[in-house]
């Protein structure tokens, strides 16, 4: 039998594809099958990849990790490895030793920059503002702009005392 794609070489690979409920049988030579294989990578899903990644770079005892359980929702790290999805937002804290390197590997960064939600992000916003002011003050001191530094210091104090009251 000759290859369905090139029609030249002997078909040695036999594929069954189901697309939109239509079954197609393909008989391919090794070369064409390799090319076709690139198209089929999709079937090797995200879950498999994530689960694989999750195991790299672990610093904690593997057995202990397997037993790790989120106290809020009961999801285990083992579950995460199986499905590639987390159980709830608290899982991030529960599995952070494992998730930190994983997130870094996926995103090339380990810190969010960008939006802050109004209701749950209020304290975050204050903290971020405070950090920015402190950095500005440091810079002002280095550049010997002491008046500016003093102004920033007062602003920081004001924010900090407001934070304590609230």
């Amino acid at each position, binding site marked *: 039998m000759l290859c369905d794609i090139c029609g030249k070489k002997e078909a040695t690979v036999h594929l069954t594809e189901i697309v939109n409920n239509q079954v197609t049988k393909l008989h391919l030579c090794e070369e064409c099958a390799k090319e076709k294989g690139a*198209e089929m990578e999709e079937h090797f899903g995200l879950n498999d990849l994530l689960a694989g990644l999750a195991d790299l770079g672990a610093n904690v005892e593997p057995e202990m990790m397997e037993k790790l359980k989120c106290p809020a929702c009961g*999801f285990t790290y083992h579950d995460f490895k199986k499905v590639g999805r987390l*159980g709830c*937002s608290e899982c*991030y804290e529960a599995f952070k030793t494992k998730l930190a390197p994983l997130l870094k590997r*996926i995103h090339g960064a380990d810190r*969010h920059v960008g*939006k802050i939600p*109004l209701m749950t992000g209020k304290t*975050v916003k204050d903290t971020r503002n405070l950090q920015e002011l402190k950095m500005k003050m440091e810079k002002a001191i280095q550049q010997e702009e002491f008046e500016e530094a003093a102004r920033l210091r007062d602003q920081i104090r004001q924010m900090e005392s407001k934070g304590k009251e609230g």
Partner: protein
Amino acid sequence: MKLDDFLSQDSEWLKGTGPSSNIVLSSRTRLARNLDKVPFSNWANKKQLEEILKTVKDVILSVNFLKNALFLRLKEMSEVDRLFLVERHLMSPEHAKDVEYKALIVDPKEIVSIMVNEEDHLRIQVMQSGFNLMECWRIIDEIDTELSRKLPFAYSAKWGYLTACPTNTGTGLRGSVMIHLPALVFAGQIGRVLQAIAKLGLNIRGLYGEGTEATGNIFQISNQVSMGIAEEDIAGGIDRIVSQVISREDTTRKAITQKNRDALVDRVLRAYGTLKSAHIITSNETVALLSAIRLGVDLALIKNLDRRMVNELFILTQPAHLQKIEGRALDPNERDIKRADLIRAKLK
């Protein structure tokens, strides 16, 4: 407004209007959001899932853009209706499965849609016709801010918005552009373009089919990374790269029209001829031929057709749309016949 009213209106992504609409079909942003401390949809129990639906419904319907939106409980709909929504890109194929606790909110213009209890509690999506990603971001940002005033979104100071899948953590933002690149494919340059885009940290895949084999020459370009870059920069990055792809496609179209005109005209008119006379036609063949006549319309090789009509055919010839037009279930063979009937009638 009822679901069936959508059938007679042009879905946003196929209107054929907006910037660079000869090359870009549509732009889209989506945000993944979850309620703090409530298990993600795949891990929540029945009671929690009902609770999520209840909590978000009224808040969502009070948002400026969504006051007149449809709230659809998917379990109360037929399978064809659900597939119809998938074909209109208002929800993901995954959302049409295991529908017991799922809902979809769609505004009457089909610009904004929100999936409830997909993998994340909320998947907010905003679509615009043509190349208009920044406008998509502007709209979705406004909706998200309004929602975050009343809903406690799961969020960490370090990692940002917390999502079911770690690939969405951070901004939870995916921006994407659906782009028609027939000239780059025709000229054999698409492989290099795909490689270059992947190297720049963006994803590119065929809308129908995969990789360079994209049926209909329609590709989707989107960001890969969602943490460590601010939302505007994610959208801006895609914007800049897509602009370059557009100008590349444009130059190639001009070059082909000059140097390879006969082959191009032949391909376009053969496609037109087949569509006008076929008696049985599959979705795949339809998409491939529509791509050719769309290019023909864009380059004024076919003059008595407008882009809107070609776009309309892209959407109406899909399985669920055909079945809704016919008002009954059709098996695949019947569909291929009805599809050909519909195309012949529209192109007459």
